[in-house]
C-alpha cells in the first residue's frame, strides 16, 4: 500500500519540497495537506508587490488547483490543525477533519510578533504575514488616511512603501537608531532612510511604542516620549516567531523553533519539520533560500536518500522599487577584521566589504548592487581574495580590465556561481537547462529552472546567461519597444507608470531603466501623454517633449510658416466670425484661406512671429484654437439635421456642437474626429470617423472605429441610445476608455481592433458603472485641459517661442 504523507501548512517550503519529491519519486506517497489559509500555495515574498499594486494575487500563485489535482494531492483549505496524536499517527483539524499518516511534515511557518502594548487588539491593527493582511491593508488604504508601521526592518519598510503607493500618509516607527540594523550598517541605513524620505515616508527612529490608542478602533500610536501619532491603520512588523506551539503541545523538542537534525527529522522519527518553524543547529531562518535548500534535503530523505542539510549563509535584498540594497553575512566590527569602503556620494553609492583572513565575511551594497552575487558567491565559498584585494571593491567587471559590460561579467562567472539566490540556482544549471531542453524564452527558463521565479530581482542576470548561451537566438522581447531608448513596449510602460506611481518623465526613465539620458523624439511625447492622461491634476506638462505643433498651437508648413485653424463649432459660422477672419487675413497679409475637409477655415502661411497677434485678433471675435495640430479632439462634423433638413430626425447640428464644446481641449493618444449625421443618409460622413453618431427616429446610433485616411474602414456599431444625454455620456466614456488604454499614436480604429470590438461594447454599453467611471474621469481631466491655448499665449505664455533670441543686424567685422 502507498505510504501516507501528511503536511501541516501549505507555505513556500513544503511547496518546494513537493516539487522536488515529485521529480525524484512521483507517486511514492498518498499526500494530504492541511492549510490554515483558505487558498493554494502562493509566493509570500511577492506580497509586497501586491500591496503596492505592482502585481495581482493571480500573478503570485505558485501552485494552482490543477497542480494539486494532477499530482493527486488532497488539500484541505482553511483547515488549521488543532492536534497531533503521535501514538495513533493521526492529525485532526479544528474543523474536525482527521487524517492518518505514516510520515508527517510540520511546516507551519512563523507567526508575526504582536507587541503586547495596550490597544494592540484594536480593529485597525494588523500584522504583515499573509494575503488576508494585505487585503486588510488595501481596504484601509482605500480612504487614504494615515498609516503607522511599527518596525523598520525588511517587512516594515516594504509595507510602508506599499501603503504609500496606495495613497496613505505613512510613518515608520523604529526602536533602534538605524533602519534594518540587522542587515545594514549605519552608513547604508542612512542612505536608505534618505531614499525613503524622498518617497515621502516619515521615519522615526528610537521610537518606542507605549500604547495604541483609540475608541473602538485605532486612532493613534502613543510613544514613550509622550508623542501621539494619529493613525487609521497600524501595521506591526516587529518580527516573527517560529510557529512551534502545536509541536510543543504534543511533546516534540522545541527551543525557539522545532528542533530538527541534519535530515530535518524532529525528536519523533516519524515527524519532520520544515521551513521557518524549524530550528536547525540552533538557527531559525526567515528567508526562502535556506528553506529551499532544506526542502531539497527533506525530499531526498522522504524518497529514501541520505541527504544532509548543512545550514546556510543568507543574503538579503529589499523589494522597494528603486532602492537597490544588498546585504550578506556578518559585518560587525571586530579587531581581527578589516573593511574596504567605497562611497560615491554623487551617484548615491555605498559599498562595504568586511574581510577576515583574506576572506569576505560580510558585504553591504547600496545603490549599485550588481556585484552582490559575485561577493556572495565568494563569501559562501570562503574564497581567498588576497590577490584581488586592491581592486575587489570596484567589482567584478573591473577585474577583467575595466569593462562595464554586464554580459562580460556574467561570462566571467564560474559554473557554480549562484545566479538566483532565492532558489539556489547556479549559472551552470541554467546553461544546462537551456541547452538540454532547447529553452528560448525567459518564461521557459523560469518554468524549468525556477531561476528568477521568486522575487525576480535576478531577472537581468538570468537574461544575460540566456543571451550568452543562445547568442542571436535569444530574442528578449517579442513586443515592439516604444523606441530605441527602451526594451519595453507601450502597454508595459503604461502599466508600470500606474503600478509604480511614476509621475514625471525623469522618474519613468530612471525606474524603467531608459538607455538614453533624456529619451528621444519618439518616447518623450508618448511618456508625456501617458502622464498627462494618468495624472491630469498633478502632472506638469513637459512642454519640451511636445512636437512643435503642440508647442506653438499651430501647424508647421513646409516653408516653416504656420497654419491657423480656429474652431467653428460643429462647422457652423456667422457673418461676424467671417468678417473677423477676413480682417485678420488682410491685416497680416495671409496668403491663403482654405475650407478644410473638417468643416472649418484654414489660414495658411502665417509667420511664426505673427501668431500671437493673429490669435489676439481672432480671440476678440470669440474664436478659440481649433487644435488642428493636436493629438486631441479635432473636429465634430455635422449636417443640418432636423433644424432644416426635410429628412432630419434629430438636432444633429446641436448635438455635434454640444459634443465639441464638451470634449475640446483633452489630449488623446492620437487625433480624434467625430461626426453627427441627422439621418442614415449620413451627409456628415459619420461612418468613417473615430466616433460617429447617426440620428434615427428612435434615438442615436453610436458608431466607432472608422477610418478614412491611410486606411479606409467603415465604423462598427457600438449600440443605440434614446436620449441626447445618453449619447453624450456614451461617446465621452468611449473616448476616455481609449485615452486610458491605447498606445501613443494609435487611432481608435487600431486600438479597438487590437482589444476587440466586443470588449469595448461590454464596457461602454453593458456596464453602466464602468461607463459612468470613464465619463467622470474624463470630466475631471477636462478641468485642467479646457484652457484655450491661444488666449494663454496672447497673454504672454511661452513668449520665447515666437521671438528670436537676438537679431544681429550686420556682421560684426
Amino acid at each position, binding site marked *: 500500500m502507498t505510504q501516507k504523507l501528511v503536511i501541516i501548512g501549505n507555505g513556500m517550503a513544503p511547496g518546494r519540497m513537493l516539487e522536488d519529491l515529485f521529480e525524484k519519486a512521483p507517486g511514492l506517497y498518498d499526500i494530504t495537506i492541511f492549510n490554515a489559509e483558505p487558498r493554494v500555495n502562493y509566493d509570500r515574498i511577492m506580497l509586497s508587490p501586491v500591496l503596492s499594486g505592482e502585481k495581482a494575487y493571480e500573478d503570485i500563485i505558485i501552485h494552482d488547483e490543477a497542480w494539486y489535482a494532477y499530482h493527486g494531492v488532497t488539500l484541505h483549505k482553511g483547515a488549521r490543525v488543532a492536534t497531533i496524536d503521535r501514538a495513533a499517527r493521526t492529525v485532526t483539524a479544528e474543523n474536525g477533519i482527521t487524517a492518518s499518516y505514516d510520515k508527517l511534515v510540520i511546516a507551519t511557518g512563523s507567526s508575526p510578533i504582536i507587541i503586547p502594548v495596550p490597544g494592540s487588539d484594536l480593529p485597525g491593527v494588523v500584522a504583515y504575514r499573509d494575503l488576508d493582511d494585505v487585503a486588510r491593508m488595501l481596504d484601509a488604504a482605500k480612504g487614504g488616511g494615515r498609516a503607522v508601521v511599527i518596525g523598520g526592518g525588511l517587512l516594515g519598510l516594504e509595507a510602508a512603501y506599499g501603503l504609500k503607493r496606495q495613497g496613505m500618509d505613512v510613518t515608520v516607527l523604529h526602536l533602534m537608531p538605524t533602519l534594518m540594523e540587522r542587515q545594514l550598517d549605519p552608513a547604508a541605513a542612512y542612505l536608505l532612510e534618505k531614499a525613503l524620505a524622498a518617497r515621502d515616508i516619515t521615519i522615526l527612529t528610537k521610537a518606542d511604542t507605549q500604547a495604541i490608542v483609540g475608541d473602538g478602533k485605532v486612532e493613534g500610536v502613543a510613544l514613550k516620549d509622550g508623542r501621539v501619532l494619529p493613525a487609521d491603520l497600524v501595521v506591526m512588523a516587529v518580527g516573527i516567531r517560529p510557529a512551534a506551539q502545536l509541536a510543543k503541545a504534543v511533546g516534540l523538542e522545541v527551543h525557539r523553533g522545532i528542533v530538527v537534525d541534519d535530515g530535518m527529522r524532529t525528536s519523533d522519527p516519524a515527524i519532520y519539520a520544515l521551513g521557518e518553524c524549524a530550528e536547525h543547529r540552533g538557527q531559525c531562518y526567515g528567508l526562502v533560500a535556506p528553506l529551499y535548500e532544506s526542502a531539497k534535503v527533506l525530499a531526498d530523505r522522504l524518497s529514501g536518500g541520505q541527504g544532509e542539510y548543512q545550514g546556510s549563509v543568507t543574503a538579503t535584498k529589499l523589494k522597494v522599487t528603486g532602492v537597490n540594497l544588498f546585504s550578506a553575512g556578518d559585518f560587525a566590527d571586530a579587531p581581527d577584521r578589516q573593511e574596504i569602503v567605497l562611497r560615491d556620494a554623487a551617484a548615491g553609492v555605498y559599498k562595504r566589504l568586511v574581510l577576515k583572513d583574506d576572506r569576505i565575511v560580510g558585504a553591504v551594497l547600496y545603490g549599485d548592487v550588481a556585484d552582490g552575487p559575485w561577493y556572495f558567491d565568494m563569501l559562501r565559498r570562503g574564497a581567498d581574495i588576497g590577490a584581488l584585494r586592491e581592486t575587489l571593491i570596484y567589482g567584478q567587471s573591473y577585474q577583467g580590465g575595466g569593462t562595464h559590460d554586464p554580459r562580460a561579467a556574467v561570462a566571467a562567472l564560474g559554473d557554480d556561481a549562484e545566479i538566483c539566490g532565492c532558489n539556489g540556482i547556479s549559472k551552470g544549471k541554467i546553461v544546462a537547462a537551456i541547452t538540454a531542453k532547447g529553452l528560448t524564452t525567459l518564461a521557459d527558463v523560469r518554468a524549468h529552472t525556477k531561476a528568477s521565479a521568486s522575487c525576480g530581482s535576478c531577472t537581468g542576470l538570468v537574461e544575460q546567461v540566456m543571451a550568452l548561451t543562445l547568442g542571436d537566438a535569444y530574442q528578449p522581447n517579442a513586443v515592439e519597444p516604444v523606441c530605441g531608448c527602451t526594451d519595453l513596449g507601450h502597454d508595459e510602460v503604461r502599466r508600470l507608470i500606474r503600478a509604480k506611481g511614476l509621475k514625471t518623465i525623469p522618474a519613468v526613465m530612471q525606474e524603467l531603466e531608459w538607455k*538614453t*539620458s*533624456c*529619451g*528621444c*523624439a519618439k518616447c*518623450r*511625447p508618448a511618456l508625456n501623454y501617458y502622464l498627462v492622461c494618468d495624472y491630469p491634476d498633478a502632472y506638469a506638462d513637459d*512642454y*519640451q*517633449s*511636445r*512636437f*512643435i*505643433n503642440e*508647442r*506653438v498651437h499651430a501647424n*508647421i508648413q*513646409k516653408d*516653416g510658416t504656420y497654419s491657423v485653424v480656429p474652431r467653428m463649432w460643429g462647422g457652423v459660422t456667422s457673418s461676424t466670425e467671417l468678417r473677423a477672419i477676413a480682417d485678420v487675413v488682410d491685416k497680416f497679409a495671409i496668403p491663403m484661406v482654405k475650407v478644410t475637409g473638417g468643416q472649418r477655415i484654414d489660414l495658411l502661411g502665417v509667420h511664426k512671429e505673427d501668431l500671437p497677434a493673429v490669435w489676439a485678433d481672432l480671440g476678440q471675435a470669440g474664436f478659440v484654437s481649433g487644435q488642428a495640430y493636436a493629438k486631441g479632439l479635432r473636429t465634430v462634423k455635422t449636417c443640418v439635421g432636423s433644424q432644416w433638413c426635410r429628412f432630419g430626425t434629430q438636432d444633429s447640428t446641436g448635438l455635434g456642437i454640444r459634443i465639441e464644446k464638451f470634449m475640446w481641449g483633452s489630449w488623446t493618444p492620437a487625433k480624434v474626429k467625430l461626426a453627427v449625421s441627422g439621418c442614415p443618409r449620413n451627409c456628415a460622413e459619420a461612418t468613417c470617423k473615430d466616433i460617429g453618431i447617426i440620428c434615427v427616429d428612435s434615438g442615436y446610433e453610436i458608431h466607432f472605429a472608422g477610418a478614412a485616411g491611410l486606411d479606409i474602414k467603415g465604423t462598427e456599431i457600438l449600440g443605440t441610445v434614446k436620449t441626447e444625454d445618453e449619447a453624450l455620456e456614451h461617446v465621452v466614456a468611449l473616448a476616455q476608455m481609449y485615452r486610458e488604454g491605447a498606445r501613443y499614436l494609435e487611432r481608435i480604429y487600431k486600438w479597438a481592433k487590437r482589444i476587440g470590438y466586443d470588449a469595448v461594447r461590454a464596457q461602454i454599453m453593458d456596464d453602466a458603472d464602468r461607463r459612468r467611471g470613464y465619463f467622470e474621469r474624463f470630466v475631471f481631466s477636462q478641468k485642467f485641459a479646457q484652457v484655450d491655448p491661444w488666449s494663454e499665449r496672447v497673454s504672454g505664455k511661452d513668449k*520665447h517661442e515666437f521671438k*528670436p*533670441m*537676438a*537679431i*544681429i*543686424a*550686420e*556682421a*560684426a*567685422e
Partner: protein
Amino acid sequence: MQIVDLEPIAVTIDITWTPIGHLDDIPRRGARCVETPKGRVAVFRTADDAVFALEDRCPHKGGPLAQGIVHGHAVTCPLHNWVISLETGGALGADEGQVKTLLVRNEGGALFLSLDTLTARAE
C-alpha cells in the same frame, strides 16, 4: 567636440564674438533662433546645459531645426524626423547630410556667437 572645431579656425581667423543673450533665455532641451545677416541660426541648450549653434536649416528639405525636439546632444527635425547631431551637425542614423555648425561661447551664462565661422564654413 566644440574644442576640436575651435582649433584650426583659431589659427586662421581672428574670432569676433557677438553677445546673443543668456543661457536662461533658452529652455532646457530647447532652442532659440538668432537672426543674422547670413541667415537664421538655431542655438540649442541640452539637458546637461551644453550649448550648441547650428544653421537653422535641415539638410533634408530645409526644415527649421530650432523647432525640433532636443534629446541628448541631438535634435529631431520637425518636418520629417531626421535626427541631427548638435556636436557635428551631421545627420545620424541612416540619413546623410550636414548642417553648418557655429561657435558659441558660454561665459558664466552669458552667450556669445561667432558669425565668422558661419562665413568660414560656408566658403
